[in-house]
Structure formats: C-alpha cells, structure tokens
C-alpha cells in the first residue's frame, strides 16, 4: 500500500514534460549572475506544446529572471535556451518567437487599443512574414479572444486595470508566439477579478493552444491553472511536477511550507520499507510516502497537512495519531481551525475541520490528532 514518491528528482530527466511530444522550449543548465548574486542557478526544464507551465516562488527566487532569459531581455552566463530545438540563447527579443505579458501591462500609452494590438503584426508585415491585409483580421481575432472588441478605439488610460490586462494579453497573442511568457499578470488586480481572470486565462490558453510560461508568487494561482509547476528558491528549482504532486509529495521542506500550509514535525527516520516510519518522542509514526532525499536514521520532518488531520477522543491505531492539547479554536466560515500542541515534546499542530463536523473542543481540552497513514509524508531536514 505504501508508495515511494516518484518524479521528485531535480535531474534534467525529471524536468521533461509528460508525453512524447517534442518540447517547444528547452532550458538547459541556465545560470545567471548579477555581480556576486547568483539569480538563476543551473536551472533546467522543458515545456511541451500547449502546456501551462508555472514558475512559482517567493520574490527574489529567480523566477522573473528566468522568464526574462526566455524572452531574451537577459543573456544567460551559462547554459542554453532552445526554442523549437534551435539555440536561441543569443537571439535578441525582437528576433524570438516568444511574447511577454508584463506585470505593469506596459501598453503603449499614445496608441489606441487597436494600435497596441496591431504593433506586433505590423512589424511582421514589414518583414514580409505576414501578407498585406492580414493585420486587421489578426487584431480583430485577438480582441475577440479577450472579449475587448468594443474597446478597440479607446486609449489605455481610459480602461480599468482588468481591461488593460486583457489588451496586454491580446497584444502578446496577436504575434502568435511559440510560447507566451506571463510575468505575474494578475498581480495588480483585486481578488475577485484575479479569480475570474484565472479561469479566463485557462480558457484562452486552451483556445489558442499556445504554451504558457506563467511566473507567480501566488501558490493558489499556480495550482489552479498549471499543468506543471516548478517551485523555485534561491535561484534553483526545488521541485518540478504536476500541482497534485507538488502539493502532496513535495521534494523539500521549503516546497512543503511554500505550497499551502503544512505541519512539519521534527523527527528521525526510523524505517524506509514499503512504508516509511518516523520516530518522534519515542513513538513510531507511520508515513505512507517519503521524499527521495530521506536516509534511514537521519533527521527528518513529518509533513501533515492541517486538512488531513482529525481530532478524536479515542486513541487511534498505533502510529496514526498523537495526543494533543487544544490551545485555540477559530471559526473561519467553511472550516474551524484548531491550534494544538503535542503532549510532552510540545510541537504545535494545526488541524482544520469542516465546520459541519467540527468536534466540540475548546482551549485546554485533550484529544488525539489522527491521520490516514498514506496522508503522512516524510521529508529530509535541511
């Protein structure tokens, strides 16, 4: 029943997209330094045709620099960027088959929406990559895709943030890039609009079939939209995989903490058989899976997601629970959040219970926090 977490390696092979398709973009061992600071450190991944790929991480982790290397605004100090199998590392931005949506939208303030969207296709027309008369049709289609036809003759300053966002998207799509690069495009929008735009972006991406590389620090956004997520920290990719994998079986403690909230209990690896075991305070605890970096006898962290824990009165079967004392109880609408501490050694455990079945426990009450063993996950301690 136990399983080993697969696909959480940091090797180049692990970075390949699912399916046997030729990748649209390949990033091979790319490094970028700014003075003493290594902004991007030997990063490798590849992106399949039509894939929604996210670079996720805190600010300063190198995700935007990676995107700018893809666009051609920065040159890598080492490594290569291949687009459609051809080395594009030294191509300037205007000679690359990539287009970017900027966080600030970067619309041309002196041009109407129509002129903004036509800017890219006009350049192609000049270089005879596009037949005459095609530009108008392309602009109409791009504006229709983002549902902004009615605003074609407005200036950017006459539009709301969300509308400007759509125009920026249409302008980048009008060039039909091989890959669209998005730099925190929803960052400046308010929450409700941001959620609407997430679905809108997904719809547009399915419609046009172009690969998206999406940079964000918002883990919810990355999980909702992506086919695969690369979690970055200090210039390196710590974990690359589908959203479920990144969430359920994170490769490192950093990833576990950054994606969602997690209880990370310091423990020791007690066994790595078909099912892992952790030792905490002399108790042997069961964990369904473990990260590849775990070594028997080494320090480790037991990851328990708050929503996977339940508070019960009776002692559960051995290895599947810890005795706790409730410290605080907070009603949050759909769920109730219990702040608890493990009896004895004392690490804190957060338990989320659906409001409809939350136990009637309050501060000072004793209980057992229990989990299904396959929901517990063992991580190496850094």
């Amino acid at each position, binding site marked *: 029943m136990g399983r080993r977490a697969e696909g959480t390696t940091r090797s180049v092979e692990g970075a390949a997209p699912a399916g046997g398709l030729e990748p649209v973009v390949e990033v091979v061992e790319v490094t970028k330094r700014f003075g003493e600071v290594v902004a991007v450190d030997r990063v490798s991944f590849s992106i399949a045709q039509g894939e929604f790929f996210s670079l996720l991480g805190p600010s300063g982790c190198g995700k935007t620099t990676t995107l700018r290397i893809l*666009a*051609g*605004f920065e040159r890598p100090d080492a490594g290569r960027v291949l687009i459609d199998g051809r080395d594009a590392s030294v191509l*300037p*931005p*205007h000679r690359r088959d*990539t*287009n*970017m949506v*900027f*966080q*600030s939208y*970067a*619309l*041309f*303030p*002196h041009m109407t929406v129509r002129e903004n969207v036509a*800017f*890219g296709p006009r*350049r*192609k027309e000049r*270089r005879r990559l596009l037949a005459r008369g095609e530009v108008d049709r392309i602009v109409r289609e791009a504006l229709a895709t983002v549902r902004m036809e009615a605003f074609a003759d407005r*200036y*950017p*300053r006459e539009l709301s943030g969300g509308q400007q966002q759509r125009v920026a998207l249409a*302008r*980048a799509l009008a*060039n039909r890039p091989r890959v669209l690069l998005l730099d925190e495009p929803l960052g400046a929008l308010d929450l409700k609009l941001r959620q609407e735009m997430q679905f809108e972006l997904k719809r547009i991406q399915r419609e046009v079939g172009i690969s998206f590389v999406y940079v964000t620090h918002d883990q919810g956004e990355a999980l909702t939209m992506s086919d695969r997520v690369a979690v970055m920290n200090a210039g390196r990719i710590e974990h690359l995989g589908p959203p479920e994998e990144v969430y359920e079986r994170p490769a490192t403690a950093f990833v576990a903490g950054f994606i969602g909230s997690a209880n990370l209990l310091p423990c020791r690896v007690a066994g790595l058989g078909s099912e892992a075991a952790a030792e905490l305070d002399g108790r042997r605890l069961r964990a369904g899976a473990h990260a590849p970096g775990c070594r028997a006898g080494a320090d480790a962290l037991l990851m328990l997601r708050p929503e996977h824990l339940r508070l019960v009165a009776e002692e559960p079967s051995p290895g599947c629970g810890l005795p706790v004392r409730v410290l605080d109880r907070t009603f949050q609408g759909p769920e109730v959040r219990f702040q608890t501490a493990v009896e004895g050694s004392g690490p804190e455990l957060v338990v989320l219970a659906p409001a409809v079945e939350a136990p009637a426990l309050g501060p000072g009450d004793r209980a057992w926090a229990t989990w299904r063993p396959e929901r517990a996950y063992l991580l190496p301690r850094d």
Partner: protein
Amino acid sequence: MRARAAPGRGAGARAAGFLAAPVGVLALLFVGPIAILLLMSFLRMSIAGSGGFTLDNYGAILRDPLYLRILARTGAIATVAMLAMLALSIPLGYVLAFRVGRLELPLLLALVLSDELNPLIRIYSWRMLLGRNGLVNSALLALGVIHRPIDALLFSSVAVVIVLSVSWVPYVAIPIYASMKAIDPNVLEAARDLGAGFGTVLRRILLPLAAPGIFVSLILVYIPLFAEFATPALVGGTSGYMIGNVIQEQILEVGNWGVGSAMSFLLLLLSGVLAAVSYRLSRLSRIEAVRG
C-alpha cells in the same frame, strides 16, 4: 494650483490672496515694460523730440534688406543650434534615463553644474579654444592636419552655433530626460518583444512619448535663442551678427528707441507664434497620454 485648504467658503478669497503678490509683481515688472515697449515702437522720434504716432519704425525694419538678412541669419543660427542640441540631447536623455544605472544622479548633477558656470567665463574659454592661437588650431597644426591656423573658427556664425549649443544644452537635455524618465521601461521592452528593432522603438515609442519634453525644450531654448546678443557679440564677429545685436545697437549706441522697440516687439511676436505652435504640437503629440 489648488489650495490645500478644505474647499468651501473663503477658499476662493484665500487663493486670490495668495496670488495677489505674484500677479502684482508680474504686472509691474513684465506687462508694464512690454506696454511701454509697444507704445514706443509706434512713437515718431526725431532730433527735434518725439511727437505723434507712426508706423515708420516698422516700415524701416521691413523695408531694409540688411535687417531682413540679419533676421534670416538669426533664424538659421537658432535653428541649427537647436537641431544640434536635440541631436545631442535625445541620445543623452535616453542614456541617462535608461542606461547608466547608478551613475544617473552624478551625471545629471554634472549636467546641471555645467550651467552654473558664469556665461562670460564660458564664452571667453571658447574664444581661447577657437581663436587663432587657440587649442583647436594649435592641436591641428601640431598634428600636421593644417599648415596655417583657421581664422574662421572664431568670429563666424559657426562659432556662435557651437557656443550657443554648449551653453543651452542642459535646458534641452533635462526636459527630454525628464519626459523619458516618465516612460515605463517595460514599454520599451514590450516594443522590442513584439518585434521592433531599435530604429522602430525610437520612432514609434521613444520619440512620441518624449515629445512633451522636446516641446518644452523648444519653448525654453529655441525662442530665447532668437534674442541672443552676448554670445554673437563676443564670438560672432560681423558674420555672426544676430538680431539681438541690432536691437542692442539701436537702443544703446544709435539711441533709436523707436526702431529698437519695434524690432523687440516683432521678435516678441515671433516668439509668441513659435510658443503657440510648440504648445499646439505638444498637445497633438498627446501630452496627456504620458500623464495618464
């Protein structure tokens, strides 16, 4: 300008109070002299004294081919100097705003400081550089490029253009720099990203968005250039004589206040027209688009 005080009763009166002093000073020291100038340009003046109104002063200017030639030369010198300054300031503004990083502030200060130099010292330094035994001639002689000093370096309209350009260039470069600084650097990147080479970015994005700064510099520099008299007097010689020198000569040396005033007023009129045209052009270039 809007007063910070809460709107309502008294705000208007308070604003009027604030404005009374500057308006008074302007009326006294600016509008007053212009009125006197205008009046004098229409006065008949002779050795016997003044009396009656006449259009002769204007007629004398517009009929005299010498005056018209000097006026044309004044326009040519001002225009060439202005174009030279724009050619220098647009790249300079771009480099300052986007390319120098941490050096931006020191370089900007250097540009401002270059204007702090006393104008007379600056002009005399240029006389030393461009003169018969000046640095430029000596260097060219020493290098064997020429065998006899070039006299035309100094006391020519070329010298006037050079010295005027160097003197005024901060007033062109700084407004252009400021309007470029207001451009989101991502906008330039977006243009490149969409397939525009440097020439297209310059023509379609940078210049239209920097246009307000360019027009401000026209108002600030091009128009005053027409009234220059110190620089042409000191480095221009007879071939660099400008309309400002004529006015100075008419009023201070000949004592013909009528013609001098008429000429000043014509110059003022020309400035007004140029300013209006510049302003109109800046509106056309969507000055508000940059603010929005």
